């Protein structure tokens, strides 16, 4: 029997929901390279950044194993995870190339141990949940779990010669590409940070969605990706700022991972407009909290050789008196951003909104340099700019341009992590990455940022949501507030078995968790007994336990040496 009744304190929930402290998984690198190539390249190499391999091949292998060990120390599985690995001369030129690739080799659904039915799981996770290797077979075959191959030619004359793989294990990659970080990212995809949806067609294998999509929520439509039709998926993949990860553990990790301060244009009045995401300028005063507040005024200039429209601000403004002391809105186009913003500043504007002249979102940053510019500025999308202009036609529009201190960078106003959903598609997969607005930078953004260390930040919480630490209580782990709950069949209090069934609630918590909450919050035995008494009275009122069962639990509590 399950009920939605919820008794636990938020503090205890957070403690119970944390990932197990003694996680461990054995991740095996399966070297599929031939003699004298790839991992077996005998070229001598000097030790670098803690990688003591004496050959190029050994250093590559060491970097792979290092990344595997990091994930292995964080995940939990009784089944070894095999990564079919190689270093090959992948397609590459002097100007562009494939650095590497990785992904799950097999997918499983409706297997014993799956807590969500009719969705695909990455095979390594499916094995963990099933407690056995669902795809047994020899290594080096499709029986492996993840395939990962990387480019052995990088840095050679015909393959992006100006960069190179950094095989060190210390993160000090300099101008090179840190192989360990890229591996952590790509292994992350293979372990579960990816969907199996074709976002171009909306197609899914056998028409089944997947465990990643189960937690991908479009906040505009209110639909999860498991609930969408193909056309809805295609539209959602482009719904910038409105696709979030809606799993409990990631959402709990957001406050300790992402910093407050999202660059936003907040509309003070009229109501019903905004807030709008902005691309901050690389020049002028950086956006700050609480930001600059003022009325918006359209900047007007001559339509001349410098700029063909009266809204491009490529020439000195002709309505300086109206702009002075206000926030100017002007259009992108023809001349540089710095020229536009400087003209607005010269007219007395206190900040500038540059409305894009081409569709697309999120709005890109404003590039350029001019040390004489001292006011803040930012870009909004074409659509958002049009909305502001339309509102201006109806009256006064008052806005605040700055860092919204109430919204974390990389999360929506409700505190859920944003997924990458650019429109049009940008370099980097949509949905199967965090939104790159995240700050600090995250491992699973579409591109690796140079400041990343060899950690996995809240990617481990995504792994928790999809099931890597499942307690097999039938409650999907991204909805489970008590992943480490006492799974005894009956309620046991201080060693006393009450004989009362240890009911599981829809939150994933059990009666034993609620008793544990009483124990944790009690400063003396009397308070513990009183708490258990209130708890069991509520359970009795809700029809979850009988009077006799209430008495049994209370009797155990009374005799228990708690605290």
């Amino acid at each position, binding site marked *: 029997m399950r009920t939605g009744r919820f008794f636990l304190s938020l503090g205890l929930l957070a403690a119970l929901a944390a990932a197990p402290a003694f996680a461990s998984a054995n991740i095996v690198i399966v070297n599929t390279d031939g003699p004298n190539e790839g991992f077996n390249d005998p070229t001598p190499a000097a030790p670098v950044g803690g990688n003591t391999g004496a050959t190029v091949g050994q250093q590559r292998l060491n970097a792979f194993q290092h990344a595997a060990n990091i994930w292995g120390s964080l995940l939990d599985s009784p089944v070894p995870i095999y990564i079919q690995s190689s270093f090959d001369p992948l397609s590459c030129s002097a100007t*562009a190339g*494939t*650095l590497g*690739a990785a992904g799950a080799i097999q997918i499983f659904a409706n297997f014993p141990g799956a807590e969500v039915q009719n969705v695909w799981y990455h095979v390594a996770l499916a094995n963990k949940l099933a407690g056995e290797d669902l795809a047994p077979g020899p290594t080096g075959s499709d029986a492996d779990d993840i395939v990962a191959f990387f480019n052995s030619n990088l840095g050679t004359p015909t393959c992006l010669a100006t960069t190179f793989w950094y095989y060190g294990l210390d993160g000090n990659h300099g101008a090179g590409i840190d192989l360990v970080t890229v591996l952590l990212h790509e292994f992350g995809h293979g372990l579960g940070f990816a969907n199996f949806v*074709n976002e171009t067609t909306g197609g899914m294998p056998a028409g089944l969605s997947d465990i990643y999509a189960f937690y991908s929520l479009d906040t505009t439509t209110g639909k999860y990706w498991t609930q969408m039709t193909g056309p809805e998926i295609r539209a959602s993949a482009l719904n910038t700022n409105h696709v979030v990860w809606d799993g409990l553990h990631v959402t709990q990790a957001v406050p300790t991972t992402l910093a407050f301060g999202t660059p936003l244009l907040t509309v003070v009045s009229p109501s019903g407009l905004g807030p709008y995401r902005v691309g901050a300028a690389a020049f002028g005063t950086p956006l700050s909290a609480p930001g600059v507040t003022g009325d918006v005024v359209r900047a007007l200039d001559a339509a001349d050789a410098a700029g063909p429209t009266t809204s491009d601000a490529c020439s000195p403004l002709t309505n300086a008196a109206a702009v002075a002391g206000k926030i100017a809105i002007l259009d992108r186009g*023809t001349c540089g951003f710095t020229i536009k913003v400087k003209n607005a500043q010269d007219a007395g504007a206190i900040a500038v909104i540059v409305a894009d002249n081409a569709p697309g979102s999120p709005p890109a940053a*404003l590039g350029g340099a001019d040390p004489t510019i001292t006011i803040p500025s930012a870009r909004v999308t074409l659509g958002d700019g049009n909305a502001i202009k339309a509102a201006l036609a109806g009256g006064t529009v008052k806005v605040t341009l700055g860092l919204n201190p109430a919204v974390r960078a990389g999360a929506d106003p409700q505190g859920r992590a944003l997924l990458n959903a650019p429109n049009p598609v940008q370099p980097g997969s949509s949905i199967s990455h965090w939104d790159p607005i995240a700050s600090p930078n995250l491992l699973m953004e579409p591109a690796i940022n140079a400041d990343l260390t060899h950690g996995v930040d809240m990617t481990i919480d995504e792994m928790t949501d999809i099931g890597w630490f499942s307690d097999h209580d039938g409650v999907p782990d991204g909805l489970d507030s008590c992943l480490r709950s006492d799974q005894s069949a009956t309620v046991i209090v201080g060693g006393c078995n009450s004989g009362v069934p240890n009911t599981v609630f829809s939150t994933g918590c059990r009666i034993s968790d609620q008793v544990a909450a009483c124990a944790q919050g009690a400063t003396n035995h009397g308070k513990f007994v009183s708490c258990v008494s209130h708890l069991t009275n509520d359970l009795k009122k809700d029809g979850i336990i009988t009077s006799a069962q209430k008495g049994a639990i209370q009797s155990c509590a009374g005799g228990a040496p708690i605290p």
Partner: protein
Amino acid sequence: MNHTQKKASGAKLLAAFGAAALLACGATASFAGENASAAGKVQGMQVAIDPATGKIRQPTAAEIKALSTSLQTMLNRSAESVQINQGPDGTLSATLGTSYLNVWLAAVHPDGSIGQACVDSADSAAAALQPGPALEVK
């Protein structure tokens, strides 16, 4: 949260999983050949130089096409070509091989810097191989 689940629609046709890595390798030689005539030296390394500007150049259309072709198998994601197997206990499985990969690409920006991106579709790959300026100035 309110989730609904879909029912399996039945088995799909067998997918022919090729060795994507080998296909990718196969395209390498043509790349090397194309670039040989446009190469120069920068700090002891051979790089692609635009003869008109003397700057490190971006990928040519031919280079992008060749690279995109090499990615087709890795970014296939053709749901229809995935063969679904069902076990006696109801377990469903499918071998994706190398057709649902996340691919790490790099390409030269207009300013000569190298941009990187992890892609899983032809669209995002195309965007990654034709990077705009790292930061627009107008």
